[in-house]
Structure formats: structure tokens, C-alpha cells
């Protein structure tokens, strides 16, 4: 491609000679970033990259080629975009970049802060970065540490808006009527609100989890509503462990830890509303659960048990004591293991195994 300007031709020639380095950077930087995000526990929606095409660069130089002395003055030839789910994660991503790269603060811009108080529009944080020699050098490509690149950071919603605005906005070459521009601005305002709401909900959820963990730790279980989060926290304190050890001791069995979260729907269906209800189940029915285990495995040579035996036997005892019978036990097995006609047979077997146990006759 040749243009009418020798200066532009010179810049394009420099671009072509550096293109393999740009492409290498565009490939490597996102990989490095993803590793660092994972280490920092930041979940991002996407990390995109692109190298500016020669025709796009030529277009840019045609408009403002005099602004650049050399190709190194152009900072967006390599572009990375990090898209987050939450707006407060944009700042976390930025702090990762600050640790990894040299930031050209003079040319970086926080477009989230440029709007007047009564205007809404493009929100994104743009950093112009350079790879410091202390972090990475390549003997064949010393220019790699000279090349600046742009990282744009924004949320999924900001990204959606920016794409829509891009399609209808300043680069389309057609003047957009005021009404549409206003509609886009209104939408930007709504999305800003939604982003803030997402972050607020996440913050409140984190607070709720901390409160639940504190209540569980302090033993105020009757104040904790039974739900997915609270049950998970509760399981972490090993509420069934003591009973499980007692049961395993019958045959000196190995205890195989398993995920007990599948008991939550069962406890919920049994009408339990707080963790205190489960705690009461354990204190009221541990002896009965132990009796069931003694009968079932006491005369066998079984020496491996999964941790689900303790809650399963507790629920068995509870249902039988409440008069649920084989129907109730089949329902329990259906809930725990998935509906199956064979569970009816298992339920009847359980009835047979437990019918003479002391807890049912007390």
C-alpha cells in the first residue's frame, strides 16, 4: 500500500516490519493476564485482543499522520480488551495491570470519569502500557519493550453499549439523528444503574455469607435460614462427623468423604426452615440412626462407608418415627438418588430392617 505522503509510507513500512512482534504480543499478553486474574481470583467474562490492520492504520494516519514521529508513538496498534462481570472488578483488573506493566499515565484515560454529572455514555478505563524489561525481554525482539499497547477495561454491559454505539455512532459515517443519540444516552444511564445494582447485590450477598458463617461458627443455628449458602457453611463445620465416626466404629470402617449438598432438598421438603432444625434432628435422632447402622452393617464385614450414611440414617429414623412408612422412605430415596421404582423395594427393605429396632418402640 502506498499513500501520497512519504511520512505515512515510512510509518506503514515500520508497521510492516514490526507486525510479527505485534502479533506475538497480542497473543502472549492475554494469556499472561488470564493467569494473573486466576491467581488474584478475578473472574472475567472475556479477554479479547487485536492488532490494528494496515488499512485501519492507513486511515488513521491519513487523518492525523503528522502527530506521530515514529511508529512507536502510536499506542493502539496492539489492543487488549478485558471484559468483567462487575464494575468494581474493572478496578481490580487495573491494579493487576499496574503490577505487571509500566503504565503511561499521560496517555491513559479513565472514561468513566469524563462525563458531566448530567450526561451518560461510553464508560471504560483505558491504560496505555509497556512491558518492563524487568518482567520480560526477548533477545531477538528488543523493540518489544518499546512498543506501547492499549488495554481497555469495562463491564459486559458497558461493552454491549459500546458495541451498539459503535454500530450506530461516530464511525458509521452517517450523521445520527438526535433522537437516536438521546435514546442511546438513556440506555447508557440505565445500564450504569444495572451495573451498580449487580455490584450492590454481590456485596450484599458476600455480607450475608459472612453473617451466616459467623452465626454458624457461634452456634446460633436457629437464627440461620436454611438455604444453599447456609447449608454449605453448615457442612463445613462437619455437623454429622461425630455420628459418622460412631457408625464407622461399628466395623472399624474407612470413612469416604462425599458431598452432602444433595441432602438440602430433602431437608427442605421435610419442612426444616433453619439450621437449628437440622441440629435438632441430629440431637434427637442420632441414637436411632446409630441403631439402624448397627443392624445394617453390624453383622457384615463392610469396612468402607460414605459420609452420607449418617444423614441418610437420621432421615430414615425421622420419617419412620413420624409415621411416614415405606411411602415416606421411597420419597426420601427418590429425592436423594433420583426417582426410581426400585426405591420402593429399597424402602420396604428398610422397613423390614428397622421394624424391631428399639427407637421405633420407645
Amino acid at each position, binding site marked *: 500500500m502506498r499513500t501520497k505522503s512519504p511520512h505515512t509510507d515510512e510509518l506503514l513500512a515500520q508497521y510492516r516490519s514490526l507486525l510479527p512482534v505485534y502479533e506475538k504480543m497480542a497473543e502472549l499478553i492475554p494469556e499472561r493476564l488470564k493467569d494473573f486474574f486466576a491467581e488474584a481470583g478475578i473472574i472475567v467474562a472475556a479477554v479479547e485482543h487485536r492488532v490494528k490492520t494496515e488499512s485501519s492504520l492507513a486511515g488513521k494516519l491519513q487523518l492525523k499522520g503528522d502527530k506521530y514521529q515514529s511508529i512507536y508513538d502510536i499506542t493502539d496498534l496492539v489492543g487488549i480488551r478485558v471484559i468483567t462481570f462487575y464494575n468494581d472488578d474493572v478496578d481490580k483488573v487495573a491494579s493487576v495491570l499496574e503490577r505487571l506493566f509500566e503504565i503511561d499515565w499521560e496517555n491513559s484515560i479513565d472514561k468513566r470519569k469524563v462525563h458531566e454529572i448530567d450526561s451518560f455514555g461510553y464508560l471504560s478505563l483505558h491504560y496505555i502500557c509497556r512491558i518492563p524489561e524487568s518482567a520480560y525481554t526477548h533477545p531477538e525482539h528488543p523493540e518489544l519493550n518499546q512498543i506501547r499497547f492499549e488495554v481497555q477495561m469495562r463491564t459486559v454491559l458497558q461493552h454491549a453499549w459500546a458495541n451498539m454505539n459503535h454500530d450506530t455512532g461516530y464511525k458509521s459515517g452517517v450523521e445520527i439523528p438526535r433522537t437516536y443519540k438521546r435514546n442511546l444516552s438513556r440506555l447508557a444511564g440505565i445500564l450504569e444503574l444495572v451495573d451498580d445494582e449487580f455490584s450492590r447485590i454481590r456485596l450484599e450477598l458476600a455480607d450475608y455469607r459472612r453473617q451466616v458463617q459467623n452465626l454458624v461458627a457461634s452456634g446460633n443455628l436457629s437464627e440461620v435460614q436454611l438455604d444453599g449458602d447456609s447449608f454449605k457453611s453448615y457442612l463445613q463445620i462437619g455437623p454429622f462427623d461425630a455420628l459418622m465416626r460412631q457408625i464407622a466404629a461399628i466395623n472399624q*470402617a474407612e470413612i469416604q468423604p462425599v458431598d452432602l449438598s444433595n441432602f438440602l432438598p430433602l431437608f427442605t421438603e421435610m419442612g426444616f426452615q433453619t439450621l437449628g432444625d437440622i441440629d435438632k434432628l441430629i440431637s434427637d435422632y442420632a441414637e436411632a440412626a446409630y441403631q439402624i447402622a448397627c443392624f445394617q*452393617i453390624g453383622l457384615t464385614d463392610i469396612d*468402607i462407608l460414605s459420609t452420607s450414611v449418617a444423614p441418610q440414617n437420621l432421615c430414615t429414623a425421622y420419617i419412620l418415627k413420624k409415621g411416614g412408612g415405606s411411602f415416606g422412605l421411597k420419597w426420601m430415596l427418590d429425592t*436423594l*438418588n433420583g426417582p426410581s421404582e*426400585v426405591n420402593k423395594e429399597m424402602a420396604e427393605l*428398610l422397613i423390614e430392617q428397622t421394624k424391631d429396632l428399639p427407637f421405633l418402640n420407645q
Partner: protein
Amino acid sequence: MEININTQGNETVATLIGRLDTLEAQKMTGQFDKLAEKAGGTVILDCPQLEYISSSGLRLFLTLRKAATTKGGKVIVRGLSSDVRNVFMITGFLNLFEIQ
């Protein structure tokens, strides 16, 4: 004890015949190792003819399940007899497998 293994594409069916007691479980370790190699796909343990399972047999099932979890596959236990199903129930192993 006998295990017949048949792989078609991503699915392996292992038909277990006889009693998987402690002694037989030791002998079957090699066969289960072969099944573990296939655990990136679906492994079906076909058990209508499995008459008995000991703790050692359960451990073989468990090791296979762990291999499947690591490799992103799954283990399905199919056609358990009443006696063997009872062992799965009282040991809490029913929760560990997809039972058909």
C-alpha cells in the same frame, strides 16, 4: 468372577458376572485399571449378574469413579440386584453413582 469389557466409541460397557469378594477384587484390579483408562468417556458397569460385592469391590468402583471425575467422564451402575443394591444403600454408595 468375570468381567467382559466392550468399548464402542466413547462408551464402555463392563459386564460383571459372579461374586466380587475380597479375593476376586484383587484379581480384578487389572480389569478395573483398564476401565479407568476409558473413564474419560462413559463407563457402564452392567451388574444384573453381579451376585455379591465386598468392601474391596466397592473400593474398585470408587477408584473408577475418581478416575472418571478427574477425566471428566462418568460411571453408570446398571441393573443392580436387590442384595447388591442393599449394600450400596447401607454404605451410602447409592449417592455416589448414577444408578440405572
